[in-house]
């Protein structure tokens, strides 16, 4: 579904992403793990279009995205949940959700999307008229994910969904991610520092370091790999 070839990008003079090639197959959950500062977020921002690609191709369903603005990428069926809690703080939960469906604003899809969101995260229904800025961190993360689903994407990108969230909520969020993948047949591309959690839900994984891909393999292989274990899983057998 997504194929990245020799991608180079960065900020100003510094080159952060130094030639990355990878692939995400339709229907899978694919994750990129790696340490802080490896360039995972920069890579995601480049794929979504917030940063221009300096070189290389980003093929989505065999079409090069590099010439498109983020808005167009949304219309092509890509949604991203960036790092941090990017809610619209002074809008209500419901208004936030509605904005998620900005590109498909017909009443029917809207209602379906809202029902789906409330189904996945019942707490959002309880808080629907509350200003999003007043939600807890975990609730905001749920809202952001639910909002990304509102545009009915084929391809969902999640940047560090576990960042700064209470452990019991992390589990719930990842369970939901898995559910979205299975029930909605949605392809999910995930960046995570919390490698064990990510690899447990993913089918395929890439290890990124210093702006390059160091390893790749099925999630199971990576979970069992000694180097990965030592570096990212925080345990040595």
């Amino acid at each position, binding site marked *: 579904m997504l194929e990245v070839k020799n991608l180079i990008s960065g900020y100003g003079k510094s080159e952060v992403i130094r030639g990355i090639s990878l692939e995400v197959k339709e229907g899978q959950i694919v994750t990129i793990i790696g340490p802080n500062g490896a360039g995972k977020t920069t890579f995601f921002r480049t794929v979504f279009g917030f940063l221009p690609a300096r070189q290389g191709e980003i093929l989505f369903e065999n079409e090069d995205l590099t010439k498109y603005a983020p*808005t167009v990428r949304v219309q092509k069926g890509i949604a991203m949940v*960036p790092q941090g809690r*990017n809610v619209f703080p*002074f809008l209500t939960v419901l208004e936030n959700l*509605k*904005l998620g469906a*900005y590109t498909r604003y017909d009443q029917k899809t809207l209602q379906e999307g809202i029902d789906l969101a409330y189904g996945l995260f019942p707490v959002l229904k309880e808080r629907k008229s509350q200003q999003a800025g007043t939600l807890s961190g975990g609730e905001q993360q749920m809202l952001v994910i639910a909002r990304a689903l509102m*545009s009915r994407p084929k391809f969902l990108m999640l940047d560090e969904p576990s960042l700064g969230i209470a452990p019991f909520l992390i589990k719930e969020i990842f369970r939901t991610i898995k559910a979205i993948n299975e029930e909605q047949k949605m392809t999910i591309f995930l960046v995570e520092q919390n490698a064990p959690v990510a690899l447990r839900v993913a089918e395929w994984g890439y290890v990124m370091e210093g702006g390059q891909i160091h390893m790749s393999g099925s999630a199971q292989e990576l979970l069992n790999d000694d180097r990965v274990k030592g570096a990212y899983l925080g345990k040595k057998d």
Partner: protein
Amino acid sequence: MANFIQLLIGGVSMGILYGVVAIGFVLLWQTSQTINFGQGELVMVPMFLMVALHIVLKIPFWPSFVLTLLGSGIMGYLFERLMIRKLLPGGVLVIVIATLGLSGFLRYGMQIAWTPQTLFFPHLFSTKPIELGDIIFSPEDIWNIVLISVIIIVLHLCIKRTKLGMAMQAVAQSRETAELMGINVRHIITLVFVLNSVLAGTAAVFAAPIFFVRYDIGIFLGVKAFVAAIIGGFNQIRGALVGGLTVGLAETFAAAYITTAYRDAFVMILLLVVLLIKPEGIVGIKEEAY
């Protein structure tokens, strides 16, 4: 009491006019972090346009009004496309300097191209005063208050209830997140500039019979609106309105109960007090909250 009500009407009829111009400041700041020091000139130019259409070409009032708003909209569009869009990456300071330059250009351009004189503009409404006991109403003041309120309410509803309005709010709260939603932020910013110009054009038509039409009226209105926006809260539309009314009422009451000589000084003192006690403005929200 009659006196008080009389002053209240006077203060509100001025304040609401400052408020509607101040709303433009807020819209631009929220959506594009732009401070437009040419705001007053966006009122001045439509005033002259209105004179050209209604008085020079003798086109009836309503068609002139519509054409003036149309002209204002086009001006706002060109302003954004030809200037702001190119300068936005340079940051606020560049915009401030550029809009200051533009305001001077429009002001003195109008003086040279048209006239340094003040031009006449007729009353829009009856000038026959209405007496109600001790209170004397001027239909002009009442109509100004009513019509501008209606415009502000319609604007408010558009922002709260329509898809584009929601998109404007989204852009105001976080541009990047708005882009994530598939909102074309560039288009929204252009739209806001057009909207701002149309609002300023509306203010122009209501202000013309009160102030007459003069090339340098923009400095006066621009400064009042800017002060109003700061006093009320630069990041809230409500704030602009509250600020406008506060300035209008403060001027009037200070002039009536203290002295007329320092009416402008009181507004400046008020500005200082607000900045010291609540820098985000009376109903403003701290920017850190974003």
